């Protein structure tokens, strides 16, 4: 292989990258996650604290900023690798500036890893239990996100030193047909929601004789509760770029566009830098690895419209129009952006491509199910102990994902439902927890793989309210082109609204059902076709909740505010305590003649602060539904006057 020009060039680059790594090999390292979620949790303050104390104690340590490992519950986290101490690399969670300071003093200077703060070691060893003993770690199957949180996304050399761009070098040796065959053979299905076979899409595009073809990476990620694509782009942008380049080579495109939402400033910054670095090393641009292959990647910032995630609307938006979906066919693969054949793939789909090229389709098919090989990346949030991003093998059950990997429901509460697939998906009850995770099984159950957003709901949340939330979203995001989507979602929302405020009528359930079918059938694009899914599944699995709202004016989850009331249990209330009075934002809590407290239901906005503030030893605040169950405690006349000041 030594006289192969592509590998010669590639190996030179690898050599260069390894040299960059050599400089830091023998000093202790602190790996610190610095993606959006880490920064939100205070990682920048933690970083500043490390820098200050490293400076103060004059310790020579490499502070290595990395992306996100997906363990959002642990942010900000650090991994300290201090070989001289004799300990393995150690994972610390929720590292505050104070903890950072202490770790420098005790671990880096005195070789004491602070056992009381250790979460686990990141490798198997005899001294410290490894994090892989936790199911959150060992049940994950990290293929696509393997390097996320391990490498510095702003330094291309780290990706290359970890084997990056080898797939690109390999692809340059294959002819386009072989690449596409390999992808087809791998059974890779688009991770953007619909699960369309990626190889087939590429095949159609490659058959076109058009001179100019375009590849678009769809990073619009419009689901209001999902952030996998962003994390991938922030933590390992090069893997996505490599995938885009391979796709472009395979279908014969010279131009690629990453359509990313402008709400993701950090991801845009990281990507811009990554593109520049890859170009300067000759891995993108003209003459990739000194061949005649040419791929230019540019970034287009989307402007925050959910419907622009839909491929034809996305194209409209790049062309400078309102993002309204168009009739298909013609499909974008034959006639897309500026009428050129256009391949549109999701970020995760493209990030999977280098793995398949590098290891082969057969290797890829060993993971997952026959119909959906590979892994799935979910953002699991809501009522779980360990929320965050997880990558698991396709085919594992929802139960395993929620209860084993993510630690189940906190605080001894009961599981109620899991909402999968965002606004186009559905709510599944516990009877469906054994459903395997793959495109077809989830669709059969009434949910949808969709974007990969997963929200776990416990008994204290209301399914009708969550449904209303999604309809509120789709109604606002409907582009207005199809009448059924524009007006139908509006009516669905109005009905759901009146049910959640206690004005529902018995005929409403039937109305919701028939309207849902109409909206589904009368809409052009996926937004309208799936908008009613949350309504349909919640009616199928949680009909009794709707009935409770409509007939008994009661909210079983005690969430819908017009249907609940707070009161103070006078048996439990302590005379001397004023916690609830002080925290009430509307002065609804008053002091009775006995100096115990009462709530003025006229003023109460039902925010629940008093309940949170009431000390656990009294635990005197009660929430009831329907509201008339709350005993009325008269406000003594004299306190009324106090209020007006």
């Amino acid at each position, binding site marked *: 292989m030594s006289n192969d020009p592509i590998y010669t060039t590639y190996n030179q680059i690898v050599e260069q990258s390894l040299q960059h790594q050599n400089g830091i090999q023998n000093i202790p390292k602190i790996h610190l996650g610095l993606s959006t*979620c880490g920064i*939100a949790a205070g990682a920048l303050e933690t970083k500043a604290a490390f820098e200050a104390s490293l400076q103060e104690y004059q310790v020579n340590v490499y502070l290595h900023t990395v992306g996100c490992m997906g363990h959002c519950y642990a942010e900000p986290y650090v991994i300290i690798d201090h070989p001289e101490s004799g300990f393995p690399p150690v994972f610390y969670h929720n590292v505050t500036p104070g903890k950072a300071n202490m770790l420098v003093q005790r671990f880096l200077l005195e070789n004491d890893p602070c056992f009381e703060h250790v979460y686990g070691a990141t490798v198997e060893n005899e001294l410290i239990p490894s994090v892989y003993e936790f199911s959150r770690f060992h049940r994950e199957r990290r293929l696509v996100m393997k390097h996320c949180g391990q490498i510095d996304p702003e330094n291309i050399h780290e990706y290359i030193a970890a084997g990056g761009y080898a797939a690109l070098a390999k692809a340059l040796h294959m002819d386009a047909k072989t690449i596409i065959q390999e992808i087809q053979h791998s059974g890779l299905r688009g991770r953007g929601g619909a699960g369309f076979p990626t190889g087939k899409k590429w095949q159609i595009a490659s058959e076109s004789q058009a001179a100019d073809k375009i590849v678009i990476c769809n990073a619009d990620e419009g689901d209001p*509760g999902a952030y996998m694509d962003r994390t991938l782009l922030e933590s390992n942008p090069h893997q996505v770029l490599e995938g885009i380049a391979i796709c472009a080579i395979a279908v014969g495109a010279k131009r690629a566009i990453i359509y990313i939402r402008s709400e993701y400033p950090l991801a845009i910054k990281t990507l811009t830098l990554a593109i520049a670095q890859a170009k300067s090393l000759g891995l993108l641009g003209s003459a990739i690895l000194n061949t005649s292959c040419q791929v230019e990647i540019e970034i287009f910032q989307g402007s*925050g419209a959910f419907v622009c995630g839909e491929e034809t609307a996305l194209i409209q938006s790049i062309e*400078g129009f*309102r993002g309204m979906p168009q009739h298909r066919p013609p499909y974008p693969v034959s006639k897309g952006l500026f009428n050129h054949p256009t391949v549109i793939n999701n970020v995760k789909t493209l990030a999977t491509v280098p793995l398949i090229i590098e290891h082969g389709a057969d290797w890829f098919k060993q993971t997952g199910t026959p119909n959906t090989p590979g892994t799935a990346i979910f953002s699991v*949030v809501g*009522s779980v102990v360990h929320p965050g991003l997880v990558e698991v093998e396709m085919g594992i059950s929802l139960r395993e994902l929620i209860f084993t990997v993510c630690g189940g429901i906190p605080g001894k509460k009961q599981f109620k439902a899991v909402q999968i697939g965002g606004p186009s998906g559905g709510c599944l009850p516990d009877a469906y927890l054994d459903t395997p995770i793959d495109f077809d099984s989830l669709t059969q159950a009434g949910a949808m793989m969709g974007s990969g957003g997963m929200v776990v709901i416990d008994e204290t949340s209301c399914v009708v309210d969550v449904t209303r939330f999604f309809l509120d979203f789709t109604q606002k995001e409907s582009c207005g082109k199809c009448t059924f989507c524009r007006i139908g979602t509006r009516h669905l929302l109005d009905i759901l609204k009146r049910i959640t405020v206690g004005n529902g009528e018995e005929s409403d359930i039937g109305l919701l059902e028939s309207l849902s079918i109409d909206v589904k059938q009368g809409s052009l694009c996926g937004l309208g076709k799936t908008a009613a899914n949350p309504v349909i599944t919640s009616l199928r699995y949680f009909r009794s909740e709707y009935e409770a709202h409509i007939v008994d004016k009661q909210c079983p989850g005690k969430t819908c505010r017009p249907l609940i009331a707070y009161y103070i249990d006078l048996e439990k209330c302590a005379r001397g305590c004023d916690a609830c009075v002080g925290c009430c934002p509307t002065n609804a809590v008053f002091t009775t003649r006995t100096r115990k407290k009462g709530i003025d239901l006229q003023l109460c906005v039902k925010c*629940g*602060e008093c309940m949170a503030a009431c000390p656990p030893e009294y635990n005197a605040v009660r929430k009831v539904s329907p509201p008339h169950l709350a005993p009325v405690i008269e406000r003594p006349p004299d306190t009324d006057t106090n209020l007006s000041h």
Partner: protein
Amino acid sequence: MEFETTDQDLITLYTICDQFTDKIIERGQLIPILQQIQEKIGYIPKEAIVKVSEVLSISQAAVYGVATFYNQFRFVPPGKYPIKVCLGTACHVKGADIILENFERKLGIKEGETTQNREFSVERVACVGCCALAPVALVGEQVYGHMAPSKVEGIFTQIEVKKQIEHKQTPNSEN
């Protein structure tokens, strides 16, 4: 509430648009130009619609139609302290609407509005990507996780303190 476009903002607007005169620019530039204007000025003043339509030789209705279609573009200036409350799925199930209400009540404005003195604005956003901290609110770039109604009060106190410090540091604050 009507806000007059400041002279400073108008100058910025004209400077941005001047880059494009004498050049043939395509319709595809419309969104990037609007994004640039919003980035520099903070919102899309009404004069921008006119100016951009001239630059691109398309109707004002076409510019306005596109600008209003996308959530990113706003037509009222943001406050000096722009408050964003996350109403994404995870935040919603943890009671984000109550947080939003508290900000609205405290400032006497509704979401999407700016206080008359342009100090504060409140808006809702969808998932800021730290659902594990839900419910979440942002003031400028600063993220506040695990929000509670009582924390709203705390945020305003913090801003007040910050303002006073800034006030002291401005050299001519005595005059």
